[in-house]
Structures are given as structure tokens and as C-alpha cells.
């Protein structure tokens, strides 16, 4: 169970989160929607314990992340796989070193064994083994994102996956590959997923439970139907471009 209990947070003078609360039961997928700058990435960073909340509590399986020291956090982070915005691959390391990063740093496995697991993982996320010696810069955005997913999975066999804008900036084909992978993971491995995005069309593919945040506050928390019919002006404003898009498609007889 993942939970935010009345969390406030700020990087500087401006508050970024102003009293956020929500719960995500085990094994469920939840999409966090919101405009750029609304504090979505910050929520994921708080789940990882990268920053402590100012007030309120961040709970993972009932344990308060904000009160932990680095050693305790390390144990909690083993449960979590994080896919950062744009992948955040280590650009001075090869694809293989990226995917095997956690094992190289924290395990006593032989390098051959790690390489074997890295190759398996590349296959699992739908990449060719031959890219193992390439640098991240030499890959397309979509491939980088899948390497990042592989890196998160090979780390510790996580039971919670956090995705920060996993499809932003990808072409349609890469998007559907990334989405399919995330869906398989969520279903086959019984992983709880939190997907942060501002791309509602992609969000619909993975989950039908939504949290909409605006200006550091939860505006909506519920199912798709409720979200569609939500009359809050901030939700309407967020959905308007999307609705105009559908209307446009219908006008051109595409939808």
C-alpha cells in the first residue's frame, strides 16, 4: 500500500505540494495527471525518500518514509523501481553498465553472471542484445526509455514501479511498446504502478484510476467515468484540448 497523508513540500519559497492525500492499494495501477509544474515528479521523488516532506507523511506498506535514515531508506528503495523522466540513464556508462548498475554496485555476482542477466533483461524489455555496448546517446528516445525500465527491473525485482512521464516525447510506435511493457509488468508480476503523465490518452491504456493534481493539490481522485464528468474548472481546462482534439477528429471523420 502506498499512501500520502496530507503532505506538504517546497523546494524554495514557493510551496509545491499543499496538503496531498491519496492511497494506492497493493497491485493496483494509478495514473497521476496534471499540468507541467503541478508537482507530479515531486510526488515520485517523495516516494523514493529523495526529499523528506515538510509536514504530513509518506507511507509505504505502513512505514513512514520521511522519518527514515539513509540505511532504512535503502531497504525501502529495494522495493521500488523508478523510471525517471527521459530515462535519466547514466550517460558516461554503456547500456549494459546502466542496466546492470545495481548488481554491479551492490551484489557479489561475477561480471559474467551480471552480463547474462543484463542480456536477458534487454530481451525482456524488447531490445536487441547487440546494443549492450552502446552509449545511451546512441539510442532513440524510445529505446532509452526501455533501457531505463530494464535498469529499474533488474535492480531488485521491485514490487512497486514509479514511472515519470514514460511516454512523453516518444513516437506512436515506441509509445505503444512502452505502454505494453508497463501493462505486462503490472499484470504478470503483480506490481503496483504509479504513472505520472500529462498525456491522458496514454494514461487510459494502463489504468482507469486517476488522480488529478493542480497547483500542488488533489483535485480529483477516482475512476475514469467520474473524471470525465468532473465539473471542476481545473479538470475542464486540462481536458479541453483533448476534447477539442476529438471533436476535430470527428469533424474530419477520423474517429
Amino acid at each position, binding site marked *: 500500500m502506498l499512501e500520502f497523508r496530507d503532505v506538504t513540500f517546497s523546494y*524554495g519559497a514557493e510551496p509545491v505540494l499543499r496538503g496531498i492525500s491519496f492511497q494506492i492499494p497493493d497491485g493496483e495501477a494509478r495514473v497521476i495527471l496534471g499540468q507541467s509544474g503541478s508537482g507530479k515528479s515531486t510526488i515520485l521523488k517523495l516516494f523514493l525518500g529523495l526529499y523528506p516532506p515538510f509536514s504530513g507523511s509518506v507511507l509505504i506498506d505502513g512505514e513512514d518514509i520521511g522519518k527514515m535514515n539513509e540505511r532504512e531508506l535503502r531497504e525501502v528503495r529495494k522495493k521500488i523501481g523508478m523510471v525517471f523522466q527521459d530515462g535519466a540513464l547514466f*550517460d558516461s556508462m554503456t547500456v549494459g553498465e546502466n542496466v546492470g548498475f545495481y548488481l554491479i554496485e*551492490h551484489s557479489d555476482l561475477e561480471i559474467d553472471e551480471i552480463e547474462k542477466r543484463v542480456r536477458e533483461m534487454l530481451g525482456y524489455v524488447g531490445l536487441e542484445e547487440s546494443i549492450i555496448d552502446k552509449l545511451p546517446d546512441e539510442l532513440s528516445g524510445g529505446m532509452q526509455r526501455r533501457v531505463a525500465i530494464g535498469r529499474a527491473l533488474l535492480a531488485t525485482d521491485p514490487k512497486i514501479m514509479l514511472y515519470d512521464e514514460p511516454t512523453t516525447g516518444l513516437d506512436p510506435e515506441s509509445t505503444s511498446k512502452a505502454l505494453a511493457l508497463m501493462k505486462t509488468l503490472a499484470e504478470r508480476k503483480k506490481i503496483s504502478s504509479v504513472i505520472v503523465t500529462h498525456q491522458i490518452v496514454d494514461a487510459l491504456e494502463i489504468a482507469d484510476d486517476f488522480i488529478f493534481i493542480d497547483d500542488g493539490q488533489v483535485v480529483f481522485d477516482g475512476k475514469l467515468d467520474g473524471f470525465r464528468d468532473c465539473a471542476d474548472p481545473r479538470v475542464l481546462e486540462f481536458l479541453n484540448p483533448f476534447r477539442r482534439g476529438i471533436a476535430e477528429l470527428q469533424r474530419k471523420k477520423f474517429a
Partner: protein
Amino acid sequence: MYTPRPKPTGFIKRFAYDSQEMLKFSLSTLRACFGRPFFLTEWIEQMHLNGVKSIYLVILTGLFAGQALALQFSIELSDFGAKTYLGRLMVLSMVRELGPVLTGLLVAARVASGITAELGSMKSSHQIDALRAFSIDPIRKLAVPRLLSLLVMVPVLTILCDVIGILGGYVIAVLVAHIHVGLYWAPVYENLNFGNIFIGLFKPIVNAFIIAFVSIYKGFSSEGGAKGVGLATTQSVVITSITILIANFISTKVVFSLIRGYF
């Protein structure tokens, strides 16, 4: 470092805040030097990048600076018929002042900018957050190897610069000033005493700390994407350069008066 707090506005408050943050960050980097894990591969890699790759630059600088200095000295000295003082003046000026300052400024330009730019771009692309997400302490993995590599390489490069500068002076002594070889070298050896060598090594160690602490802090604390990284890089070079010059003056003043008897 990682616990964000409201940043004060206004030039003086901001300066005080930045200095305080940098001090705290530097202390935690120092503390981390003595703990485990130690990233040996990163340390060696940084020594190569920051030190070995700066060698040509330092050789060129030392050579031309030494020669120019020797030319000036020999002209002035010959007016007094005191050309045999050339070796002595070369050692004093290269080892005590020019070697440390020139090397410090060169490394500030080449290495401080590189470190800030690299760490800044790692920060803005969330790679530093990613390290922490994988339970790796970025201070241990990124800051410590850079600091330790500079602590080794800046003194080494400074000694190289001194040696090349004095050799450059020798070339001028023989070819231009027509001083006998022995008359150039004898005062050189004589003046490589404890006091001069001490101050000649003390200064580059201070420079290494300045370059490392400023450039690493500026990289870790940069904000606002590519533009922010560019700004941090410029600031890093400017601050290290000026601080090196100020620290050099203070070292000369203080250390000289403390160990006067050894010169």
C-alpha cells in the same frame, strides 16, 4: 544539500547563504573521503581526466612563462652586472608564486568548468536522483573522486610547471643571456630549500581544495536546465580563479611570516 529550504533573496543574504551551503557541502564531502565504499575506478578515471590530460597545457604555459620571465630578468640584471642572480630569481618566482598561480588558473579554466558542467547536466537530467534511487551516495561516487584526484594532480602539475619554467629560464640563460651553465644551476639548487618547497606545495593543495569545492558545489546546486548549467559553469570558473588569486596572496603573507626562519 538535499534538504531544500527557502533561499534568501538580496545580494548579501544570498552570498552568505551560498557560502554557508558550500561550507556544509564541502565538510560532508571531506567526511565522505574517509568512509566506505570508496570508488577506486572513478578516482583513477578522474586523475586521468583532470591531471594527465592537463599535462601539455601546463608544459606549454610553464615553458613560455618561464622564458618570458627569464628574458626580463636577464635584461634588468645585466644592467647591474648581476646576471648570476638569474637562477635564484627564477626559483623564487616560479616555485613560490608563478607556478602555483598559473597552474591553479589553468586547472580552474579547464577542469573546474568541466566538473561543473558535467555534474550540472547530470543533475538536470535527473542522473543524480537516479544514483540515490539506486542507493548510491552521489557525494561518495561523484564528489570524493574529483576532490581526491585534484588533491593529487594539482600539486603534481604545479611541480611540473615549476620545473619546466626553470628549464625555460635555463634555455634563455644559455642562449640569450650567455650565462655559464653552472652559474645558472648552482643558485637554483641552493634555493630549493625547505621554506620555498613548503610554500610551493602548500599553495597548490589550497588551490586543489578551492577548485574542487567550488566546481563540485556549483554543479550539484545548479538549477534550471541547460541555461542554469551554463551559468553555473561560468560562475564556477570566475569564483575559483578569483579565490585562487586571493588565497595565493594570503598564503604568501601568512605562511611567509610563520616560517620565515626556514628560507
